[in-house]
């Protein structure tokens, strides 16, 4: 029988969606040789690295640091979750839609708090949209129509490298045939970033002055004169000039980033921003949109809203969904030391959270479901490795403008997908609850 050595099995997969950032570029071409990714075309450096290095740093299944089988890990995870009084399910933004859906089913079953990584990035944007609404559009509209693009507190040149070329700066569209020449690009930030180099104008503002600036712009837009000569370290006249540019544009878009959501003022910064862009619609067509981080970060908020009515920080402990950022949000649950068990899926909570919160996570039984080793898997009670969504597992993802895209499976993985792991944990928890005292499983956990 001929050895397979030397026989190359080459596959070229087109139209692959990148799972790295919120732009989720869906035009990647991936070359696979003998089950290994050899080349990725069309991707930016971030996306390319995600594919090329996906074999590195894989997690291994283990319990209490000792090697175990996936089955044993799933049993151990189910036992921890079934016993917990106030568990937390967190992470979820770097996986696909069906896994996210299953995580909500599990939260309902065990009466858990469920929150995702948006909670520490763009959750204030979601709160602001809930408070005042949003005038927004897809990136396709920006590509085809926008003649004024403002990047405020975000840095797409480094964080979303293909956003400017595909949609917002150099992209050529129906009413923007000359690309960059048909657009004015303005960058507002507290310091110059690489995005400033591709912008026509850069406005440097004082840190933590965004709320004041949006309020002042809104007052100026209403025709009020202000007593101050400057706001946020920039002369009022310069803000008036910006306002004129906004009003005289044919189709304006304001993209904001975590420079607004995670600085002093939080969701109220975004409330002020969104109201400004809404009020500009009295003069022209003006939109706003957040620059979202992880690949399917929008998807989790979409699925959670569709299933529970709320986009993040949802609690199921009483058997029905409740929403209260400040109480059920991951930062507060951990800072108050309330949760007694945690399932962290596709996120590095220990690596990213402040010491006090990480300390509480270390002190409770924690299950890490992740394709890769991280600070979280290092200290987790149970580690369940999975196939990386978007590379070794297929599914759906939402782009940052709420457009669903198909994520393709390009290579095989020895490990199950996030969805499969969650399905098996759910089945095990159901069996334990039914087998334990014969009581039927109720939504919200086994409450007497």
């Amino acid at each position: 029988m001929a050895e397979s050595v030397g026989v190359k099995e080459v596959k070229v997969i087109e139209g692959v969606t990148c799972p790295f950032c919120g732009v989720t570029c869906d035009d990647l071409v991936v070359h696979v040789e003998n089950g290994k990714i050899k080349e990725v075309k069309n991707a930016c450096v971030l996306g390319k690295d995600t594919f090329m290095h996906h074999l590195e740093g894989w997690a291994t299944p283990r319990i209490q640091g000792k090697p175990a089988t996936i089955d044993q890990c799933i049993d151990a995870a189910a036992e921890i979750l079934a016993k917990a009084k106030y568990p937390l399910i967190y992470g979820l933004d770097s996986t696909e839609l069906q896994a996210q859906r299953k995580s909500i089913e599990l939260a309902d079953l065990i009466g858990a708090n469920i929150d995702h990584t948006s909670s520490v990035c763009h959750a204030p944007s979601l709160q602001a949209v809930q408070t005042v609404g949003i005038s927004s559009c897809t990136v396709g509209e920006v590509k085809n129509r926008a003649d004024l693009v403002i990047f405020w507190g975000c840095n797409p040149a480094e964080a979303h490298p293909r956003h400017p070329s595909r949609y917002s700066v150099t992209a050529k569209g129906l009413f923007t045939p000359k690309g960059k020449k048909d657009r004015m690009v303005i960058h507002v930030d507290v310091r110059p970033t690489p995005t400033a180099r591709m912008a026509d104008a850069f406005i440097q503002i004082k840190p933590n002055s965004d709320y004041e600036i949006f309020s002042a712009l809104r007052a100026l837009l209403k025709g009020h004169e202000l007593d101050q000569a400057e706001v946020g370290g920039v002369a009022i006249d310069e803000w008036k000039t910006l306002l004129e540019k906004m009003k005289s544009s044919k189709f304006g878009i304001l993209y904001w980033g975590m420079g607004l959501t995670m600085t002093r003022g939080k969701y109220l910064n975004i409330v002020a921003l969104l109201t400004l862009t809404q009020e500009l619609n009295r003069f022209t067509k003006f939109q706003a949109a957040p620059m979202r981080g992880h690949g399917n970060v929008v998807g989790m908020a979409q699925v959670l809203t569709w299933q529970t009515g709320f986009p993040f920080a949802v609690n199921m402990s009483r058997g029905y969904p409740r929403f209260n950022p400040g109480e059920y949000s991951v930062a507060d649950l951990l800072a108050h030391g309330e949760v007694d068990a945690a399932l962290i899926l596709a996120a590095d909570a220990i690596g990213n959270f402040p010491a006090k919160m990480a300390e509480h996570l270390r002190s409770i039984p924690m299950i890490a479901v992740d394709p890769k080793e991280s600070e979280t898997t290092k200290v987790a009670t149970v580690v369940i490795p999975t196939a990386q969504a978007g590379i070794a597992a297929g599914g759906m993802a939402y782009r940052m403008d709420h457009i669903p895209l198909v994520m393709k499976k390009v290579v095989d993985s020895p490990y199950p997908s996030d969805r499969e792991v969650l399905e098996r944990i759910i089945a095990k928890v159901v069996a334990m609850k039914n087998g334990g005292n014969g009581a039927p499983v109720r939504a919200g956990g086994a409450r007497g």
Partner: protein
Amino acid sequence: MPPVILRVKEAPTGVPLEAESISPDLFADRSREEIEALPVALGNESHRLGDFFQVEGERSDQIEVDGSIPRVKWVGSGMTRGRVVIHGDVGMHAGSYMRGGEILIEGNAADFLGVEMEAGLIRVRGNAGHRAGAAYRGSKFGMRGGIILIEGDVGHEVGAYMRRGLVVIKGNAEDFLGARMAAGTICLFGRAGLRTGGGMQKGMIVCMHPVELLPTFAYDCIYAPIFLRILFKGLKRLGVQPTPQQANGLYRRYHGDLAEIGKGEILIPA
């Protein structure tokens, strides 16, 4: 009527206890056994009130909690009558949706104190957390009536979205005091954080110390508001004693937020 005394048997330390059943409305017509059997939720588990508290007395709308219960949430939520005294700290949501009666907290209150209350009185001897007297996420209006009196400091967004009622803070406040308030009165004796009254439509915020105002507040005049004398007369009955300077002095009036309809007032002693 002698009060029902709840002695803390075992205070929850980690997982929070949700005890909206600690309410005069529910205690008033119940025997001791019935009070002990009232449901509480420890995380996702159902328990009896008697599992956590030793109950003394019965059939009373006067409740005394003998001890600190910082992990017990929703105490006195939605109550319409009677009195709840907590000899110590209390957890989140105390007195939220309250429609009457009185709550006295001798220690500190956590976040969401008296959120969306409609009437009644809440007094806190210590500090209160964020969003006291404000709205729950997604609600259009916060506190709709009643009085919240806090002797210590408060957190962010206190009195945000207020629709009516009075919040008195003897200590300091953090950012966004009275943010987006629609009406009502906030009286701050300590110092304010940033962006006081941000997005306010109507209503009044009295600050006894100089405040860094948003650019969208405009100066009007110096005057001696008669309304304040009447307010302070009422406050005296609650044990708040403004200085003669504060009670009879002149105030600088600012109006805003000009980004909104700009009919709110901020008063600062001249």
